[in-house]
């Protein structure tokens, strides 16, 4: 189905199932521990052996020699694969660094070997017996030493992108002439996805065919890159990933667990099960790259922006790309004179890549604090500053409107709900016992991406329907919204729908990433259901466009049980959604207003959150319950980014030092206060027949800045370096009275 004109009225608008707060249909499996994750699929193939990866002990250099003799003699060891016996390997299209080192080592903990043994413990022990002789070479590990790195354009692959340098109007002249301006530089650190489920795979060969039971967000990408890396035809590879215990972008790509399990299985002649050990994940896999961002804003006394510049520096391995931290600045506010640019340093740290809301997540942590700084200079309310700079068109192409944009309503609704009028605009004035208390606001922004997505829907003989697509559910609620979509389209109750996901033999979907999964995969199911409805109508002789409701099909003056259609056998329809240029004619984005109340301990500088509110404008909300879960989870991730998460770089040895969950701190329950989420719920007819948009990342975008702005309001401490741990501002706290 081609979607190239705005959606008219369609069965989704009935909202008998879609749009209702619906508990996840996979919820009981999840909470009872019976949803089988990759590492737990003991039943899929017999005689599974265990694989353990040995990671490189250096960041950059060469492997001179690998001595596996002792390890090979260790009890239970079946095989050891290194670059010396792996055969010729390619590199995945989506991977920057290859997944098996040798002889060159590209980054710390890059896989050097996989040991396959009868038991996990045997494999783990034997891995430590492999002697690797390395020749270290000097690496580049300090981003701040490369502030003049070359200008590079790029796309996050997740919707954010920008050319190396982009100009509209005359920024420098306008900025020089602006009566009120800010010129500030912010830094954000490297961050790790730290999803609960580690990367894990079971690999089994049948002749020259490979099956992988794995944990992956993008099945078709994965299938292609497994084939490319191993040098086998893609049709010999089958991936299965029905449950994913979190990904956040860390599982967009095939990683070492899948490739090393496949190599180990081939060498051992046995299926191999392999998970990355937690302490290996931050350095072996990808991470969100650190940035340094300079923001310059010039405005008139009325607060209207006349000059906007956002310049970002990040680093990556050779051949990698920039963190696209400037992309939202191209679209968020009006202003005639604009400049964005990105510089990319070459670093020999692990691979930087997409992590939830790549680009916007760190970009808004700079831009939206700069807006707060500007509001203060103007003596203007920060909510009003954002409102006066709203734009309904792409500021760089004034003929191009937003498909929808209700940022002003987000801000006004949020201000009203949060009691913003009680905020004292002078910092450091509100005290609650030991706490200095303040409120902050920030806008949230993230694009809505259209990606083609296919599905197969089968009406079974018993009147139930089965949906099959290689779409994944990474904890987002995909199972449920696809079931809701099919139920709505076929006039069936939710529990009459079975959804099967994550198998590369199913029709290719949009996959899970860039907050594009929900809208596009549901639109794919919609397309398949439209086709199925046609087949049903034809079989029942009910004319062109009958209604499906309550288990009946009604058309041409007749009403027939849907079950009658499958008396002669099941009916299957396969189709997908493909898009025209509605995302080029219109700018499709999602918007939020984040409000935060924070406390700063006047004695110790500890920052603790007290209240959070997000008002979201993200099209039709397909399942308010699942969407709320996505947004509060994202707000929690934003709190982590603002307050504690950072990978500490050892600039001598070139690795992330705090590479486990004891030392890389993410928020715990005690860190998260009451969170409120409001959805404006305006269907967007340009986005898809569902009229929905992405929402899974929006909740993260801007929340860190709202926290930073609340801290400023609380204690007069302006945060420009994240995370805002107390050591950075201890000297700016009020002096205590002894």
């Amino acid at each position, binding site marked *: 189905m081609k979607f190239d004109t705005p959606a008219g009225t369609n069965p989704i608008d009935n909202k008998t199932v879609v749009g209702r707060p619906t508990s996840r249909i996979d919820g009981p499996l999840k909470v009872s521990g019976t949803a089988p994750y990759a590492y737990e699929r003991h039943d899929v193939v017999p005689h599974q052996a265990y694989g353990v990866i040995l990671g490189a*002990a*250096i960041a950059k250099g060469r492997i001179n020699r690998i001595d596996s003799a002792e390890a090979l003699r260790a*009890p239970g060891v079946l095989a050891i694969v290194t670059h010396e016996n792996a055969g010729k390997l390619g590199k995945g299209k989506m991977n920057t660094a290859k997944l098996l080192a040798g002889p060159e080592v590209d980054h710390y903990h890059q896989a050097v070997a996989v040991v396959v043994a009868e038991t996990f*413990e045997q494999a*783990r*022990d034997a891995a*430590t017996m492999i002697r690797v002789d390395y020749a270290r070479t000097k690496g580049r590990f300090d981003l701040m030493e490369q502030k003049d790195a070359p200008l590079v354009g790029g796309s996050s692959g997740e919707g954010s992108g920008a050319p190396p340098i982009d100009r509209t109007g005359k920024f420098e002249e306008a900025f020089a002439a602006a009566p009120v301006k800010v010129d500030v530089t912010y830094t954000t650190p490297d961050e790790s996805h730290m999803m609960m489920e580690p990367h894990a795979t079971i690999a089994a060969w049948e002749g020259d065919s490979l099956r992988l039971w794995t944990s992956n967000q993008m099945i078709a990408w994965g299938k292609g890159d497994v084939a490319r890396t191993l040098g086998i035809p893609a049709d010999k590879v089958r991936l299965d990933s029905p449950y994913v215990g979190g990904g956040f972008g860390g599982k967009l790509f095939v990683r070492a667990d899948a490739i090393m399990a496949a190599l180990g299985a081939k060498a051992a002649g046995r299926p191999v099960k392999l998970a990355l050990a937690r*302490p290996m994940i931050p350095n072996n896999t990808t991470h969100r790259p650190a940035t340094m961002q300079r923001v310059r804003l010039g405005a008139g006394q009325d607060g209207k922006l006349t000059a906007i510049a956002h310049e970002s520096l990040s680093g990556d391995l050779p051949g990698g790309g920039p963190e696209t931290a400037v992309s939202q600045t191209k679209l968020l506010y009006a202003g005639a004179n604009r400049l964005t640019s990105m510089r990319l340093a070459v670093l020999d740290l692990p691979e930087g890549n997409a992590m939830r809301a790549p680009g916007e997540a760190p970009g808004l942590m700079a831009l939206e604090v700069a807006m707060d700084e500007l509001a203060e200079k103007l003596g203007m309310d920060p909510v009003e500053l954002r409102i006066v700079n709203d734009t309904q068109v792409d500021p760089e192409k004034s003929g191009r409107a937003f498909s929808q944009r209700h940022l002003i309503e987000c801000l006004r609704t949020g201000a009203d709900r949060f009691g913003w009028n009680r905020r004292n605009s002078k910092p450091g004035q509100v005290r609650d016992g*030991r706490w200095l208390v303040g409120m902050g606001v920030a806008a949230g922004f993230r694009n809505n991406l259209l990606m083609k997505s296919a599905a197969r829907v089968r009406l079974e003989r018993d009147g139930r329907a089965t949906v099959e697509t290689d779409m994944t559910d990474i904890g987002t609620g995909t199972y449920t919204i696809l079931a809701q979509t099919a139920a709505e389209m076929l006039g069936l109750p939710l529990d009459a729908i079975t959804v099967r996901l994550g198998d590369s033999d199913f029709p290719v979907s949009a996959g899970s990433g860039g907050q594009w999964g929900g809208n596009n995969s549901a639109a794919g199911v919609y397309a398949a259901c439209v086709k199925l409805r046609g087949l049903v109508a034809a079989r029942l002789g009910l004319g062109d466009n009958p209604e499906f409701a309550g288990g009946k099909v009604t058309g041409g003056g007749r009403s027939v049980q849907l079950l009658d259609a499958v008396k002669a056998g099941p009916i299957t329809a396969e189709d997908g959604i493909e898009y025209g240029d509605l995302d080029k004619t219109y700018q499709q984005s999602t918007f939020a207003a984040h409000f935060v109340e924070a406390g700063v*301990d006047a*004695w*110790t*500088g*500890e920052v*603790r959150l007290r209240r959070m509110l997000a008002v979201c404008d993200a099209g039709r909300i397909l399942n308010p319950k699942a969407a709320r879960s996505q947004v509060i989870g994202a707000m929690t991730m934003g709190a982590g980014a603002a*307050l*504690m998460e950072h990978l*500490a*770089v*050892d600039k*001598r*040895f070139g690795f992330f*030092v*705090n*590479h*486990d969950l*004891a*030392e890389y*701190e993410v*928020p*715990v*329950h*005690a*860190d998260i206060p009451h969170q409120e989420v409001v959805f404006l719920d305006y269907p967007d007819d340009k986005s898809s027949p569902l009229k929905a948009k992405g929402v899974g990342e929006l909740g993260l975008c801007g929340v860190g800045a709202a926290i930073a702005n609340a801290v400023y309001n609380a204690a007069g401490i302006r945060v420009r370096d994240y*995370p805002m*741990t*107390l*050591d950075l501002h*201890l*000297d700016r*706290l009020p002096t*205590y009275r*002894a």
Partner: protein
Amino acid sequence: MKPFTYTRAKTPAEAAAAVAGTPGAKFIAGGTNLLDLMKLQVETPTHLVDIQDTGLDRIEKSADGGLRIGALVTNTTAAADPRVRRDYGVLTRAIVAGASGQLRNKATTGGNLLQRTRCPYFYDPNQPCNKRKPGSGCAAIGGYSRGLAVIGSSDACIATYPGDMAVALRVLDAGVETVRGDGTKRTIPIADFHRLPGDKPHIDNVLAPGELITAVTLPKPIAGRHFYQKVRDRASYAFALVSVAAVIRPDGTGRVAFGGVAHKPWRVEGADAALPQGAKAAAQLAFAGARPTEENAFKLPLAERTLASVLAQAKG
């Protein structure tokens, strides 16, 4: 994890004899730290003697009016004991400030004293670490040292003792009862129990090989308000940047110990004496001769401010 053998002892003396007589042997109780370190091959015992059947799981009144907490009493049980809560509030507060509910259910009083540093370089067997591999060097010096020691450190090691419970025990002047392989018993004052790193940072404490902790003894209750304030990057389940254990009397006198700053719970007598003069005076004495790194120098003003906060609460 290296392969190891495993036995269970019936009595403390039998356990001590078993470990003393077996090279490479270690005791195991809750295992909340040891097993993690074994998986990383930071610890590589060849034999484990499980002490969970040795009956050291009681809290009893002692003859001198104090309490005797068996080495196997879990952190949860010790913190919840009504006598501990009533008379040794600093201890309850310190214990519940540490780890998580699940870990405290499993972790024991004796094991808690023996938890090893959380220095990230100690946890990464690819990196030099004099504590893990004597003579290999210290990667933390000149490296990521934000959480590490500011005082009492050496050129060989800047690790911190990570626990909370022992900081409270230090302020209470607790004792550590032990039994050795030959059956001899002794009580080690908590002040002397943990070592400074010096040139032997691989040795955390003064226990002899095979010497088993059987109990922690608390003296008679110490009058005053009990405080344990722990400062950390997140609200729970994090190691202290700085912690302050204190008992403060109405007249402003009292005692104070600091956690998160040294290779052992840090207490300086002179600082106790200076408490009535305020946090600045007491902290100056407590941290005289401090040698922080650039990354952790903030712990010195933080310790002073945290103590000031405690003293303000004591007044209030």
